């Protein structure tokens, strides 16, 4: 037997092109069903785990699947925004704790997730390197983000403009990396975590000012003292793209906090009854918002995926038939080509069984190598199932029902307010300025402390 195996191995090593062809074909045949099955199982497990740990998600009516993927994985297109008012609406019911999410911007390909410290605790996140968020403009990196971008605490990360061609849009913000999160094996490894207020500043709702010193910096009728005590004029005042110790106090928001945008709200009811009551509040057909149970959405998704898997199974079967035919053809041709060596073995007293044994051993080795390769490749492919989720997130219409496919246009008031790159209104309105606290913003959630001292009208671009 050892001799036959040696002969088989030598044949495989000698006829490399044939071996490569066989291994490639058989690997593909094994890979397709294995990768499909494992990817789906892994995705199912992860999706269920993530979904079951997220009781309810509230967002603007539209794709349920899109909203779930957005709130759980921060992928796919951002849903239409809702407002802080919705957050307060839920809080006022006292049925659930809430976690606001604003996931709209990206930094070097990774989603910037604006939220509060509640999310940090809700997901059981912890800082592995560096410190927690210290002030406005700080960010924490997920473990994958840090390793892929090669960033460490103290480094800087610039947000991407929402639209490359919108020159009047908010200036990309230079974020300070204060820490790196401990790996969790979840989508949280692939996010840039910021305070909600920081993401509003990225969006242009809030901003700070820097004084540009120059020849025009002379006192005149329009100038007044800024928060640092410098004389500044409208002409030499610019909005800041970076929070520094010097300009921290100059950051402020315009408009009523009730209009500030969120993309989703995670709601954590304190009981099943509270959950039912909260869901009931969003059942009206006139209701522009929807509430979803991510577990239900994932179940629907898995049902649809099982149908896709069946299609893949058929394809795999077809591929297996083609491969068997190919292997048969290759073996037949190879036996013809190896007639001389087979004759030698026959002359030396070898039986047909022995020669068949050599061919079977060859095929067994090739199949074993192919299977091992297919397993490795399938494991690698299934480990990227989070990417698979994001691909699925981009095809919500595949999953959602007709009713849920209806995409409502968000009310005008939730459109994100914009400020010009230089906010001329700030000088006369400086008394309305909202001081940004330099203390750890995680120390409080969105609260009255962070709201403007008094409601102000949205300052429109001049």
């Amino acid at each position: 037997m050892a001799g036959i195996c040696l002969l088989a191995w030598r044949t495989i090593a000698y006829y490399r092109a044939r071996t490569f062809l066989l291994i490639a074909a058989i690997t593909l045949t094994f890979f397709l069903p294995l990768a499909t099955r494992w990817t789906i199982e892994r995705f199912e497990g992860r999706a269920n785990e993530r979904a079951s740990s997220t009781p309810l998600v509230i967002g603007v009516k539209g794709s349920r699947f899109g909203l779930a993927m957005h709130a759980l994985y921060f992928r796919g297109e951002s849903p239409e925004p809702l407002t802080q008012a919705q957050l307060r609406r839920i809080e006022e019911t006292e049925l659930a704790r809430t976690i606001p999410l604003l996931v709209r911007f990206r930094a070097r390909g990774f989603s910037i997730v604006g939220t509060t410290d509640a999310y940090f605790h809700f997901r059981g996140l912890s800082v592995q390197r560096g410190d927690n968020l210290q002030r406005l403009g700080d960010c924490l990196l997920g473990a994958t983000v840090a390793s892929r971008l090669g960033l460490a605490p103290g480094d800087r990360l610039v947000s991407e403009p929402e639209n490359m061609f919108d020159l009047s849009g908010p200036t990309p913000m230079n974020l300070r990396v204060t820490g790196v999160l401990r790996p969790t094996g979840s989508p949280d490894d692939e996010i840039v975590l910021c305070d909600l207020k920081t993401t509003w500043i990225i969006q242009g709702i809030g901003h700070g000012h820097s004084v540009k010193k120059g020849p025009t910096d002379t006192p005149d009728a329009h100038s007044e003292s800024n928060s640092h005590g410098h004389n500044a004029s409208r002409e030499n005042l610019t909005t800041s793209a970076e929070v520094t110790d010097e300009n921290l106090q100059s950051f402020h928001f315009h408009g009523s906090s009730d209009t500030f945008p969120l993309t989703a709200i995670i709601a954590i009811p304190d009981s099943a009854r509270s959950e039912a009551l909260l869901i009931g509040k969003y059942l009206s057909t006139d209701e522009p918002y929807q509430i979803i149970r991510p577990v239900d959405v994932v179940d629907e998704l898995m049902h649809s995926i099982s149908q896709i898997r069946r299609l893949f199974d058929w394809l795999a079967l077809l591929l297996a038939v083609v491969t068997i035919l190919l292997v048969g053809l290759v073996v037949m041709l190879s036996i013809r080509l190896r007639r001389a060596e087979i004759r030698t073995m026959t002359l030396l007293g070898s039986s047909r069984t022995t020669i068949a044994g050599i061919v079977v051993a060859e095929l067994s080795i090739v199949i074993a190598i192919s299977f091992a390769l297919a397993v490795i490749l399938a494991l690698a492919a299934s480990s990227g199932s989070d990417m698979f989720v994001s691909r699925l997130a981009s095809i919500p219409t595949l999953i959602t029902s007709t009713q849920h496919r209806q995409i409502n246009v968000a009310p005008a008031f939730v459109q994100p307010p914009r400020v010009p790159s230089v906010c001329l209104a700030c000088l006369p309105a400086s008394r309305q300025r909202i001081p940004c606290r330099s203390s750890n913003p995680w120390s409080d959630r969105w609260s009255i402390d962070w709201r403007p001292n008094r409601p102000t009208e949205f300052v429109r671009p001049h």
Partner: protein
Amino acid sequence: MIQVSELEFSYGSLDFQLRVPELAINRGEKVAIVGPSGLGKSTLLKLLSGILVPQHGTIRMGEVELEHFSDAARRRFRASKIGLVFQELELIEYLSVRENILLPYLIHGFSKKRTEIQVSAESLAAATGLADKLTRRPDQLSQGERQRVAICRAMITQPEYLLVDEPTGSLDSRAASEVLKLLFDQAERNKTTMLMVTHDSSILDHFDRTVDLAELQIADTSLEVK
């Protein structure tokens, strides 16, 4: 000894028939089989080794009558008792010299201890000047060296009978004499009965006896070759 009587063989569709009325070769005898091409010299070797089965007549190899054997038994007999050196060397290109020499054991399994067989292969290689070429492949050897590998492969099982078909046909005179010397040395050492088909009349003196198939036909009217 080898005893052939009333042997008849034809290839069916081919216009060829071999008849050997009587042929006896003693144990340890070295016999050259000569004759013009097409008489059936190589076919006779194949009949003696059990590769072909005669339509008529008997072949006795020692105590064994081959016609009473099944195919499997003939193969086993050939593997264990007969060493074959073919006109075309039939070396396997993807095996090393060592593996080519050990090929009968690789196919049939190791009946002896593997280390003993390895030692036999190495001593055979040393005796034939292949000691430093054991890891090479046949395509890296000269024709003479390839012939020596084929002889080592035939001798590795220490066969009782050595059937050799035109071993010097493609060699120059020097290489041919080396190969012949090697064959005779090996056959002598193991007291092997050797039958060699050859066209080379200059080497016939080395043999105990020469059997000319054409003369045999004239001397004995029962031998006909069409």
